Each structure stands twice: as C-alpha cells, then as structure tokens.
C-alpha cells in the first residue's frame, strides 16, 4: 500500500508550498496520474483522508486527472495508445514499445483559502 507514503509526500509538498503564503486551509489538490503509474485511486483517496487529518489539507478534495498511456514503437516508429507495459505494437505486433507517457505522478495545482 504505497499509496499511503505517496500521500505523505503529497502533504509534505502542499505544506512546503503553503508556507509563507498565509494559507488558512487547502481546499483542493489537483493531481495528474498516469495510467501505468501503479496507483489504485480508491487507495490513494482513502489514504489521503487519513494522512491529511490534522494538517492544513484536512478535508481537502483530491482531484485526479488520468493521463492515458502512450508508447513509441522502436521497430516501426509509430505512436500507439497502450493499456499494459507488455502490450505488443498494434501495427507490427512486436513487443517493442517504449512508454513515453503514462508514468506521471504529479501535483499540478492546489486551491487554498
């Protein structure tokens, strides 16, 4: 359940960013999570609620935007949408896809009062 430690990281970053900005409360945190990023969203939101308790982000909404996974075929050079790391290229059938998008674990913005 690495989602718990990721949430600790999120809170750390949010607290750092709130410092010296007279933030009373963090209302919402906007994340971008890649489809291949090994994140169970329900585990992340559940963990966040626990970890945020007693912090400036208690009660904040965690808003997650999914980033679709894309790969570049080493063999035929096309960009394709992928669902799994071991998908073959839909054009040539080779297992030669380099993941170029879909690993994201980013905090984009936060809404504060």
């Amino acid at each position, binding site marked *: 359940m*690495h989602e718990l430690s990721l949430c600790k990281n999120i809170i750390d970053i949010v607290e750092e960013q709130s410092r010296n*900005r007279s933030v009373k409360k963090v209302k919402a945190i906007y994340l971008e999570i890649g489809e291949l990023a090994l994140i169970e969203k329900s585990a992340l939101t559940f963990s966040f609620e626990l970890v945020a308790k007693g912090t400036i982000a208690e009660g904040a909404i965690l808003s997650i935007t999914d980033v679709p996974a894309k790969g570049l075929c080493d063999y035929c050079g096309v960009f394709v949408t992928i669902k799994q790391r071991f998908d073959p290229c839909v054009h040539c059938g080779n297992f030669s896809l380099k993941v170029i998008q879909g690993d994201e674990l980013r*905090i984009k913005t936060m*809404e504060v009062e």
Partner: protein
Amino acid sequence: MCGICGCNDQESALHDHGKESLDHKHSHAHSHDSHEENRLFLIEQDILSKNNKFAEDNRRYFSGQKILALNLLSSPGSGKTTLLEKTIPALKNQFNIAVIEGDQQTDCDAERIKATGVPVVQINTGKGCHLDAHQVGHATQKLTVEDKTILFIENVGNLVCPSLFDLGESQKIVILSVTEGVDKPLKYPDMFYVANLMIINKIDLLEYVDFNVEKCIEYAHRINPDLQVITLSATKNKGLENWYEWLMNEHKKLFSVHHHSTAF
C-alpha cells in the same frame, strides 16, 4: 530530529539536515488574481520529488565513494537472503561488502547476514511496504560503508511498491524463484520494467515444478528487452559463478569510469 522528514534518527545522513531541501526550481507558484476568497497555486511537482532528491544525494555519495549499490527486489521467499549468504563468503576477500536489510518486522535476516562477518544494518519499515531513499541514506551512515564496497540493499519482499522508489542504487536486481510461476513478469510488469537484471533462483527445483525458464525470460523481455538474465540455485551452488562474474564486471565498470583502469 531530521528537519526534512521529521524522523528521530540522531545519526547524520547523506543529505543536508540544515536547510530545506525542496527544489523550488520547478514550482513557479503564483496566485491568480483573487477577488474571491480561494486562490489557486501552480505547483507542477512530482509526488516522488522528495524521495528522488534523497536518491540523488545517495547516488552522488555512492559514486564519490566508489560504492556499487544494488537494490535487491523480489516477492517474500524468493531466496534473497540465502543468495547473499552464499555470495558474501565467496567474494568478501576480493571486495568490501556491506548489507542493508529491509523488512517490515524482525532482524532475522540481519542476524543471518551478520553471521557472514560483514557490516549489516536492519531497517524495519513497520507498516511501510518498501524502502525509501531517505531510510537508505541514514542506514548507509550507520554502516560507515568503506570505499570500493559492494552494498547490497535487500528491499522489503514485495513485487509492487518498491518498484516506484529510487534508492540511489546503481542497479536494480529482481529475483524470481521457479516455484512462483512463469507468468510473474506479466503479473507484476512494473518491477520487471525498472529492473536491470533478473535472477531466476531455485533452478534445482525445475524437475518438480511446472516452470518453463525460456517462457519466463520471453515474458520478461516483452516488458523490458534490455533485461539481463542469470539462472541459478543459491542453495545448491548452481550457476553462482555467472552471478559473481556479473558482480565483478559491474564493480569493474564503476571503478574504471573514474580511473580508466580496472580494479583487478
């Protein structure tokens, strides 16, 4: 107390405890014009950025001290500790060796390694299901790892979470035993994607289990075509020479990068 993470480790670690460590270069926060009460700040930061910063500190330190740091990853029971129990006596006359043991509870593995006579430190992660770079930084200082050491970091037995956390290692080694099933790479693709070397262990049991080595390697290469593979049996001393040779080559590479000469 560590000012970065709030841990109570009194030891110094590889990062600077004296100043805020977050790199703000990538966070151009600004508040949008706000006639309303709420403000929006742009953060644009990787959730793992703190861990990655510690990992870079570790990597810089390892590189400076000529330490070959190897992150050993697998399910529980794949034979990681047994492999180390065999490897250490075979190589400790040629190299300095040190071990960081990661487990949720107990120091059973650390005790086994201690019996081989090399420095070892146990990290108990408690509820944590993986080691992180900050813990490894502290553990490295506790060990007082000498220069030109092979540092084995035995991660918590788990094929999912540890794949996300860079520890600053030189190489990630995933260990799989033939009792686990041929499709393990497909079931846990992220771990095999990040690994540099796959060790297939317990090959002495091949006659008793339904495990096709070639198929397993093919599956792993679908995910990571560059993955190197070694098959061995730690308990029965089969194939260990290939593993030792791999270690020597990695050590040599690390050393010659800095010295343009070999270590042997």
